[in-house]
C-alpha cells in the first residue's frame, strides 16, 4: 500500500469539506442579506399602526380656509375597527350636526337626518367641501389600499412609492416620505392616474396622545388644483377602543353619536 494514496484521499476529502463549507457560508450570507433588505409593505403596515391603533375612537376638527380668508370648521367624532371600517358623526356646526358617514372597504355612505336614510357617496366627493375628500376624511389603513412598488433610503428616512391595489382607490399613486426613526410620515404626495399631482399632505406637530399613541396631531393639505385654498385636520383624544362590528352598518348610522 502506498502512503501517498491516503494523502490524496485526505486532500480530496478536505477539498469536499471546503466546498461544502463555502456553499453553506454563501447560503447563510445570502439569507442574512435578504433578511436585512427593506420591505416597503412591512414598513407601510408599521406606519399604519404608528398612526393609529387598529381599532380606536377620536375627535377631529376639519378647517377649510378659502382664498378670501374665510374659514369653515367642522367637528367630528370617529370610530375605526380593523383595517377598513370607519364611521363618523358631525358634532358641529349646527347645520351638519347629526350627519354621519360610514365606510366599509370601498363602500361609503352618508346619512343626513332630514333625508332619514343613508345614501351612497364616492371617495372623490367631499362631505365638508375644501381640499380633503371623503377618502381623506374616512381614511383606512394605507396598506389596505396601496402596495409598495419601490422604496428608497434618504437622509431623513424612507420614501415609499405606492400604487393603488384596485381602481376604486381615490389616488392612483402615492409617494410617502417617512421619518425612519419614528416610522411616521411627514409628507404624502397624492397623484392621479395621469401622473398629475392632486394634493400634498403634511403631517405636523407630533403629540403624545397617551397609551403609546404618539403621532402627528395636525395634517395640513394644499393642492395645485385649488390655489389659495388650505385645509387642516386637527386630531384630539385618540384612544384605543374595542368596537362591535354591528356599529359599522347602515342601521347604526343614526346612532353613532351614542358611542361617545
Amino acid at each position: 500500500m502506498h502512503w501517498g494514496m491516503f494523502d490524496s484521499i485526505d486532500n480530496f476529502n478536505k477539498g469536499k469539506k471546503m466546498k461544502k463549507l463555502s456553499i453553506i457560508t454563501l447560503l447563510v450570507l445570502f439569507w442574512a442579506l435578504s433578511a436585512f433588505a427593506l420591505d416597503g409593505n412591512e414598513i407601510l403596515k408599521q406606519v399604519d399602526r404608528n398612526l393609529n391603533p387598529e381599532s380606536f375612537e377620536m375627535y377631529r376638527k376639519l378647517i377649510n380656509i378659502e382664498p378670501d380668508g374665510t374659514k369653515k370648521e367642522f367637528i367630528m367624532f370617529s370610530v375605526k375597527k380593523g383595517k377598513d371600517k370607519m364611521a363618523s358623526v358631525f358634532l358641529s356646526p349646527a347645520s351638519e350636526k347629526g350627519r354621519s358617514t360610514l365606510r366599509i372597504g370601498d363602500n361609503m355612505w352618508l346619512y343626513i337626518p332630514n333625508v332619514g336614510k343613508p345614501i351612497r357617496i364616492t371617495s372623490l366627493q367631499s362631505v365638508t367641501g375644501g381640499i380633503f375628500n371623503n377618502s381623506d376624511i374616512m381614511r383606512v389603513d394605507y396598506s389596505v389600499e396601496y402596495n409598495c412598488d419601490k422604496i428608497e433610503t434618504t437622509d431623513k428616512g424612507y420614501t415609499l412609492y405606492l400604487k393603488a391595489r384596485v381602481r376604486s382607490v381615490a389616488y392612483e399613486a402615492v409617494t410617502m416620505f417617512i421619518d425612519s426613526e419614528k416610522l411616521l410620515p411627514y409628507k404624502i404626495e397624492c397623484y392621479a392616474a395621469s401622473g398629475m399631482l392632486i394634493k400634498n399632505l403634511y403631517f405636523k406637530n407630533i403629540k403624545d396622545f397617551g397609551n403609546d399613541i404618539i403621532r402627528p396631531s395636525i395634517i395640513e393639505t394644499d393642492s395645485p388644483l385649488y390655489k389659495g385654498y388650505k385645509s387642516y385636520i386637527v386630531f384630539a383624544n385618540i384612544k384605543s377602543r374595542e368596537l362591535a362590528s354591528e356599529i359599522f352598518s347602515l342601521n347604526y348610522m343614526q346612532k353613532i353619536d351614542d358611542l361617545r
Partner: protein
Amino acid sequence: MRQFFLILIFGLISIFFYQSVFSQSTDNDSIDPGLDFKIEEFEKKPYSLNGDIKIKETLRFLDRDSLLFKQKYLDNYTETTSWQTDLDLTIEGQYQKDIIKLYGRFKGLFYYNNNENFESEGKAEEAYISLQPSFAWAFDAGKKVHKWGKGYAFNPSAFFSRPKDLDDPYATLEGFYSLSVDYIKSMEGFLETIAITPVLMPVNRDLNHDLGPEDELIWGSKLYLFAFDTDVDFMFMISDNLDNHFGIDFSKNISPSFEIHGEAALVQDYHQYIIDEDGNTSEQEYDAFNFLLGLRYLSSQDTTYIFEYYRNGQGYSAREYENYLTFIERGYDHYLNTSNKTMISKSHAFAPYYNQQAAMRDYLYLRISQHEPFDILYFGPAITFIYNMDDHSAFITPQITYSPLTNLIFDLKTSFLIGKSKTEYGEKINNAKIVLSVRYYF
C-alpha cells in the same frame, strides 16, 4: 304681517352682507387657522337641543284656464298670482340615560297669504322612546318615520311612511305611531351584515287614524343584507285595509363615481277608483306592480347626475286621466250655465286619487347639480326635470343654493309646469312658481 316677514328676510340678508364686507383680513398667511382644539366644548351631554328657522316667500303664477284651477275655485278667484309667506320653526331634542333614549322633533308652521290670511299649525313629526340594550338591538315605541327604499324622488317600497313631496324630496316627514325593533348581526364572509326591522302600526281613532277609518293592526318587516358590496332589502306590509305590500330594493356602486339603485313593490288586490268623462264611476281590483330603476353619476367636473325611471302600477293611464279632466271641464261648463255645482262636487270626491303627485304611470326624473361652478364658493346650482311619459307633460325646477356663512342657507327655486291641455302638468292650478327661502340652523 307680510311686511314683518319681508323685513325679517331683509334683516338676515343685511347681516350676511355686513359679515362679508367687514370680515377679517383676506391675507391667508395672517389668518389664524384655529388649530387649537378644546375637546371639553364637545363633551357628550345627556341632552341636546337643536333646531332651525326657515322663512320662505312663495309667489305662484296661477293658470286660471287650467281645469284644476276651475275645479278648486270655479269663478270665485280673480287674482292671477298668489303669494304666501311661511315661517317654519323646527326644534329637535334628545335625552339619553344609559340604554334609554328619548327623541322628539317638533315643527311650528306659521303662514300668511293673500287668501287665508294668517294661519298656524304645530305638530310633533317624531316623538319616541328607544331602548338600546346593546349595539345589536334597539326597541322603539312612539311616533317615528320609517324611511325605506333607495330612490331619490320616488319610493315604491316605502310602505310605512308618508309619500314624499316631489318638489322637496329631502324635506322631513311626519311619522306614524309604531312599535319597531332593529336587530343587526355582522358576520365574516361574503354576507357581511344582516339586519331585521319588524314594525307594528296600530290604526284606531286615536292613533294613525289618517291611514283608514277602521281599526286594525298593520304589521311588516324589512330584512337588510350587505353582501358583495351591495345593499339589498326585502320588505313586506300586511294590512286588511291598505292591501298587502311586498317589496325589494338594492343599491350598488358599479365604479367609485357610478351608482345604480332600484326598487320593486307588489300591492295585492289594489283598488283603483275611476271616473269617466260622463261622470260614471267604477272600481278596478288588481295586483299592482310598482318599480323604479335609477343611477347616480359624479363627473370629473364635480357635476352630479341623478336619473330615475318610475313605473307607478297604481297610476292612471293617459286616457283615464284625460277622462277625469274632461269631466271637470263639463262640470265647470254646466256650473257656468246653470250655477249647479253637482258635477264639480262629484269630481272633488276623486281629487284625492287623480290630483295627487305622480298620479299616472310612467315618469322620468333627472336632477343635475354642480358643486361651486366657476369657483364661486358655497354656491350650488341645480335643475330638476320630472317628465310624464304618458302625456308628455313636464315639471322643471331650476334652483340655486348659497351658503356663505356657517349655518345660513339661501335657496332660490323657480318651477315651470309644461304641458298641453288635458295633461297632468298642463292642468295644474299654477303654471309657474318662485320660492325664496332663508334657513338658519342653531
